[in-house]
């Protein structure tokens, strides 16, 4: 059941949309990641030790934030990709009719 030979998944009309969306979301995340690295490098940890939320410092909140942001963006990306795939698949089916 699970291990039959792989089949060709066929052409995907949403490829261009997904590639463009992925690239922009990647760049968006890069800005936050670069910010995390640069705050460390440029301030030598002094800014990172500032208490910013419920007794936790910026280093912890920013680090955890990057992990949570990755998941949130991943879910948004999947939602948008799935919606586009459905939209284009529906359009293709209508054209066939």
């Amino acid at each position, binding site marked *: 059941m699970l291990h039959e030979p792989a089949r060709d998944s066929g052409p995907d009309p949403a490829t261009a949309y*997904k590639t463009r969306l992925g690239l922009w979301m990647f760049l968006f995340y890069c800005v936050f990641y670069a910010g995390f690295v640069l705050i460390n490098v440029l301030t030598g*940890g002094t800014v990172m030790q500032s208490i910013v939320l419920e007794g936790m410092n910026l280093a912890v909140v920013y680090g955890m934030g990057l992990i949570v942001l990755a*998941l949130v963006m991943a879910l948004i990306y999947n939602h948008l990709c799935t919606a586009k795939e459905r939209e284009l698949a529906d359009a293709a089916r209508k054209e066939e009719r």
Partner: protein
Amino acid sequence: MNLHGTPLSIAVFAVFVLAVLYLSFFFARKAKSASGYYAAGGQIHWAVNGISFAGDYLSAASFLGICGMIATLGYDGFLYSVGYLAGWVVALFVVAEPMKRMGKFTFTDAVDAKYDSKGIKLAAAISTLVVSICYLIPQMNGAGSLVEPLLGLPHWVGVVIVGSIVIMIVSTAGMASTTYVQFLKGGLLLIFSTIMVVFLLVRGIGTDPVSLQDASGKKLLFVPQQSTEAELATQGYQPVHKAGEFLKFTREGETSWWRRDAQGGLWQAQWAAGDVVNGQVGGLLQPVSRITAIGGLTAEEAARGTGPISPVGFLASLTHAETRIEQWHTAKVADEAGRRTTIYYPKNVSGTDEMKPGVKFKVDTLWNKLNFISLMMALFFGTAALPHILIRYYTVPSPACARKSTIVAIAAIGFFYVLTLFMGLGAATNGTVNPADSNMSAPLLAMSFGKVLFALISAIAFATVLGTVAGLIVAASGAVAHDLMDRYGGMNLTETQKVRAGKISAFGVGIVAIILGILFRGINVSFLVGWAFAVAASANLPAIVMLLFWKRTTASGIVASITVGIISALGIILTGPEMFAGPYGRTAAEAWHKLGQPGIISIPLSFLTLVFVSLATQKKAVAARR
């Protein structure tokens, strides 16, 4: 410390191994075709694949290494967690779906999909082997180190056991059995790490931690005495030797080492010189690390402990400026007779210092800043270019499933990395750090909650090695059998021959891994994982990215980029300060340069090489296409 596995931990380990072997033989019947062997038929459910990604990716370096680093160095260890997870963003947004669309069985298939170039096949296969071997050595070495204390077996036996089991897993059913081993391991790791963190938060924190106990119930925790030279003199201590900030005293024939802090106070240390440990031949180091003051609580309240505490409360208490925590460090000095002595000493730091970056990754000089940026670049860009991760995209039916499985992986891996901060800090505050081997911090923390959790966590730690090594051997054997023998060598193997070649290659790579694991015993090889990320980010990622986003990329450009990426990354590491101060046995000052991490140079260099060579070979590429 002397930790011997309990019958329970050995039993749990044996059950896990038997389950894994059963799975392997169960799936063996279904791995008759090349697709079945190398890609599990491309029919794994995306949710299973996502957890398997976690099982593949969360290696001993993640579970044991990061928790140990946080336990001894505080927040700096968590930087690895952030970097390792952030790399999955690159995998999802840039690599996941195109890899599934372009590739068949290996990383080489994907980069060579448009070109059918012998040069790409050779360069990409070599890159796969270099990255896989760099990753395999620390895993195998870690397996030996784990088996030694837990099962009471010699290091080499541990390496042989892991190697043999993995060879059996991979050579019976290839990617199918590997997938389910990784799924099992990933799931168990998440479940039991969560349980341990819940136990930790229910226990809370206090200055009189549970720590570990001997058979009679006596606490083993080493509580360092604090004193001054004048006080020690009145107690009959005689100064014998001074080595930098460390002082050696004797009293009634007993030797002790102390470290002088910035205020002139002395802190008692543990020490080892040859087989003499803390003054006894064949003696044992005691577990260490505790919290000595909790911000906002009186000494009495802190001694009673906070009781159950929320995750935010736990982190906030440890971050409090008035909280004090022992960080344990190691130094090697020579005594008055010139004998090399290892000193394990505490630094009593504030919560502010414990929870901010800067203990390991200093950013005080230009070179340190560049090294830090370089490391974070390698972690960010390396994940999406690791061959054993990339081949998992071929095990799902469609690009959409590749995307969804990556999202499951981000959720699982991200959640685990959040737990590493709690497990590492939990070990640091519960007196469960082995001063000679911080990698045992998570299993020792489990031991403080009882033998059952220790047995389960130990077996999972071992399974962690099995899952990752299996993935690496599939990737490496694919590079040998599929890329080099079949496609580069033009052997045109039949389906049956391809499967047989894959199994023989897995056996060969497994044997090489066993030999390397034994040869590298005792050598700190954790830097090899860093190599793997740096080489993958420098050699593989530019090729993948440019192939997808720049239409003028040529086969020659990809070959040059991969070659320059490997050579520049390895060249910078081999001539850098970490190699001189470590494996070469010289000093960091003798290194050819001061850059320990290559990414900041090798990644852009590899991109630029691809662009220049592609532009220079445009006419040739167009002519070849005609």
